[in-house]
């Protein structure tokens, strides 16, 4: 159909839809007088409109709003015990739950650990079993650039938690800026991160949420990847390999994550690419005006990012 004709059809259709059924025939008789083709076109679309009902296309293909987690809070736990660990301090909290610094309370050794409480309801035996299984896989990751998962369990209230190596460091992008690293140094740092990801991929573990805040660089200059595979175990309801991560901002997410499609090792490689882009150019591959999850979703899935070489020149 030609543009002009469609504009004519849709104007009549629009008016007909908002006209009450009783007056519709009279309206159409008048509007389509002498143009039988227009009348049959509008009649046909009116039927489609009715058949489409409330259902057709009304549930979005991807529920982007689900990417943003709710922010209700759990009670403060400082000073309390979780398993054999005594909570000392809160390190951070986010969409996933809270993170605390803790020490073993049974005096077996006084190493500090990070405890992550995850906010999901694991109320079926199947999900509890899966949580345990995933934890075992993650606990087997033993690499100098991956924060170790020591232990895990479920609190008295049924909240699952993970006990991890406590890493004190700076997110990789901030570290590079603060230490004024040159390109070679940045690449050397990044290569170590890639080696850690490769190590995990060889063991069929996908990170799913690679971003600068999950790559901390210690005072000694050693990059450590946090939360390997955690995005999967904290979202068991999302199911298997199709799980969508729920980042606060999907800036580092891959198109398949945005679309809720199966996640593979390539998902991590995509996120690594975004991190590298940021380390080399100091900018995000997406326009600075991109802020809301749906704007990111559009750019990630549809736009071709500016070449890093071009981005660098735009001071």
């Amino acid at each position: 159909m030609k543009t002009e004709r469609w504009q004519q059809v849709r104007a009549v259709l629009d008016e007909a839809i908002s006209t009450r059924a009783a007056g519709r025939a009279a309206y159409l008789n008048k509007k389509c007088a002498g143009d039988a083709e227009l009348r049959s076109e509008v009649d046909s679309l009116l039927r489609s409109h009715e058949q489409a009902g409330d259902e057709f296309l009304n549930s979005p293909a991807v529920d982007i709003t689900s990417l943003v987690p709710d922010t209700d809070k759990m009670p403060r736990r400082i000073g309390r015990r979780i398993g054999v660990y005594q909570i000392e301090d809160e390190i951070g909290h986010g969409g996933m739950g809270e993170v605390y610094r803790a020490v073993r309370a049974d005096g077996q050794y006084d190493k500090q650990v990070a405890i992550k409480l995850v906010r999901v309801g694991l109320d079926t035996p199947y999900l509890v079993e899966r949580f345990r299984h995933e934890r075992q896989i993650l606990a087997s990751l033993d690499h100098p650039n991956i924060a170790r998962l020591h232990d895990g369990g479920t609190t008295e209230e049924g909240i699952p938690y993970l006990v991890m190596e406590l890493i004190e460091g700076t997110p990789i992008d901030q570290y590079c800026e603060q230490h004024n690293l040159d390109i070679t140094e940045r690449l050397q740092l990044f290569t170590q991160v890639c080696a850690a990801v490769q190590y995990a991929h060889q063991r069929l573990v996908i990170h799913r949420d690679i971003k600068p805040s999950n790559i901390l660089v210690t005072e000694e200059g050693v990059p450590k990847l946090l939360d390997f595979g955690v995005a999967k175990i904290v979202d068991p309801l999302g199911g298997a390999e199709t799980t969508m991560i729920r980042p606060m901002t999907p800036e580092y997410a891959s198109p398949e994550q945005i679309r809720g499609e199966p996640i593979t090792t390539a998902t991590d490689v995509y996120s690594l690419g975004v991190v590298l882009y940021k380390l080399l150019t100091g900018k995000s591959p997406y326009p600075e005006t991109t802020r809301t999850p749906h704007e990111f979703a559009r750019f990630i899935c549809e736009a071709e990012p500016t070449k890093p070489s071009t981005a660098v020149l735009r001071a």
Partner: protein
Amino acid sequence: MDHARTHRASKRGGDVYKVSLDEAGDQPQATDVDIVALDDALKNLAEMDSQQSKVVELKFFAGLSIEDTAEVLGISASTVKRDWITARAWLYRELDRSST
């Protein structure tokens, strides 16, 4: 979209499409609309009225509300609503035709 097309091509006997046991039972079930046919229809709609096709993209593919769609496109919410309703009727008919 590319993924959907690849998937469809494989059903016609193209490349083997690997699905692990884990994901086989758990494909995303966002919609039972034929996404590939919808994409084709949207391209035709874009030729007749590009604003209407953008409204459908934002509302259906990006999951935006009427109000957010209006803000992104810089048009009024009532215009979005009219664009949406007539586009939806047209797309319904197109998809109905393509499936028969």
